[in-house]
């Protein structure tokens, strides 16, 4: 099976971080993490529960839109996903605007639930396919949700990793910075340094490992049952990735 897409490398990378978790929730505008979560569910034989925002079939929740947030606050959600129009080296994310928020140069949809879920879900995985200095900045223009908090702030959750179209970073919560974990096949450390606007750490040892690409078995799942499931919420993504229904 050839022609592995960047999205599929990202899906596999994220799915690996979800192994063994009980309950994964997926928010708005998250087709890649959504696919990763559905893949993790497939790989677990159904033991991993996935709550996919916007899905009408197989509802997890029966108490309305607030339940995702309440459920997370109760500690019943192990992993979630956030992106940002900007992400900085302290894992702050910006989903709102570029420039002065009162008279922005660019305006984006808004913060959704990030300002809450980033605090309460243990394993928040950041994702952003476009890996460029425009996206990965030294300091975000607007903090939708901060990567780290003062020690007295209640915060059982926070950033765990950042998966881009070029590489995977771990987030070191103690040090408050990203550490490069692996380079996607075909990408180089020099490229990452050039395309990343923030400082990041390097892994111990001589070389940066390569991101393990999805096996043919995983690709079959991604392009088969996962693709079918994700189509319900993300029809355009599914068509672009996997063709018409």
């Amino acid at each position, binding site marked *: 099976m050839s022609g592995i897409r960047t999205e599929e490398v990202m899906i596999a990378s994220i799915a690996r971080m979800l192994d063994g978790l009980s309950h994964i929730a997926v928010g708005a505008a998250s087709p890649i993490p959504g696919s990763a979560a559905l893949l993790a569910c497939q790989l677990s034989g159904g033991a991993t529960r996935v709550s996919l925002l916007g899905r009408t079939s197989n509802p997890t929740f029966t108490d309305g*839109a607030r339940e995702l947030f309440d459920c997370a*606050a109760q500690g019943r959600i192990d992993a979630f996903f956030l992106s940002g129009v900007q992400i900085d080296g302290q894992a702050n994310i910006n989903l709102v605007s570029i420039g002065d928020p*009162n008279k922005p140069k660019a305006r984006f949809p808004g913060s959704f639930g990030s300002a809450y879920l980033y605090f309460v879900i243990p394993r928040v995985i950041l994702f952003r396919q476009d890996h460029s200095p425009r996206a990965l900045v030294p300091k975000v223009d607007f*903090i939708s949700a*901060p990567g780290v908090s003062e020690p007295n*702030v209640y915060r059982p959750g926070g950033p765990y990793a950042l998966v881009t179209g070029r590489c995977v970073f771990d987030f070191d919560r103690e040090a408050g910075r990203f550490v490069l974990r692996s380079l996607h096949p075909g990408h180089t450390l020099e490229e990452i340094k050039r395309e990343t606007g923030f400082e990041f750490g390097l892994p111990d040892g001589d070389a940066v490992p390569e991101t393990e690409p999805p096996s043919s078995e995983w690709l079959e799942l991604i392009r088969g049952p996962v693709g079918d499931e994700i189509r319900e919420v993300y029809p355009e993504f599914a068509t672009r990735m996997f063709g018409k229904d």
Partner: protein
Amino acid sequence: MTNLLASAEEIAARIPDGALLALPPEYAPCSMETIRALVRRGAKDLRLLGVPQFGIQAELLIGSGCVAEVETAAVTLGEQGLAPRFTEAVKQQKIRMRDTTCPAIHAALQASEKGVPFIPLRGLIGTDIAARRDDWHLGENPFGENDPIVYLPAIKPDVSLFHAAKADRNGNVWIGLRRELMVMAHASSAAFATVEEIVEYDLLDDPQTAAGTIPGLYVSGIAQAERGAWPLGVPHLYERDHDHMALYAEMAQTQDGFDAYVDKWVTRKAAAE
């Protein structure tokens, strides 16, 4: 007693200019037929509350100049991209924008539902959302030590407006799993709904149906509007019309294009009916 109204037009006539108007997101049924009626009647100075986020429903009102203020966690057309009229209105400072986050809206509506003046919420601290909300209060947990927590003031909408699959003649509205519509109705001074169908039995008589029903006690008026959520969908009845949404997203890139959309799909469509 709930008013049985003849049309979405009559609901729009009961939503006053300047009202704080709570609306569901694209995926909980939204009364698009009433949104279009509000555009037709030239509503002014509406303050929109997204419960918790917006799409085309806010776009139509903002682009038509009906809106003074927006409080929401997001405005997006989903896979059809950014919301062009919202984006331009913010950049040109045509509307007051109050950024927030989904659970803060839900919690503040629950506060109104419970009749308490505020509710605490975790998270939020250190965000620019909180930094820019001078109506929020950074306080302490009185049961903790050195434990800061945000106090959110209750939000009590003047009107909440939504669409649903069915209602009965007593004003009971079946919303199934879309429980946030019930919180909206409880929390608001008035609630209006368009529905696909008005049934001839009482939705509260059957305990299976009753569990997903807003009692008429909270509903000021209902009107039948078949396909009233279009171009959005109603779970289990019809899908969001993605092609039409793509057409909207393209036309609304400019104000002229948006005006042409409104002329064709809001003004003229109603006149033809």
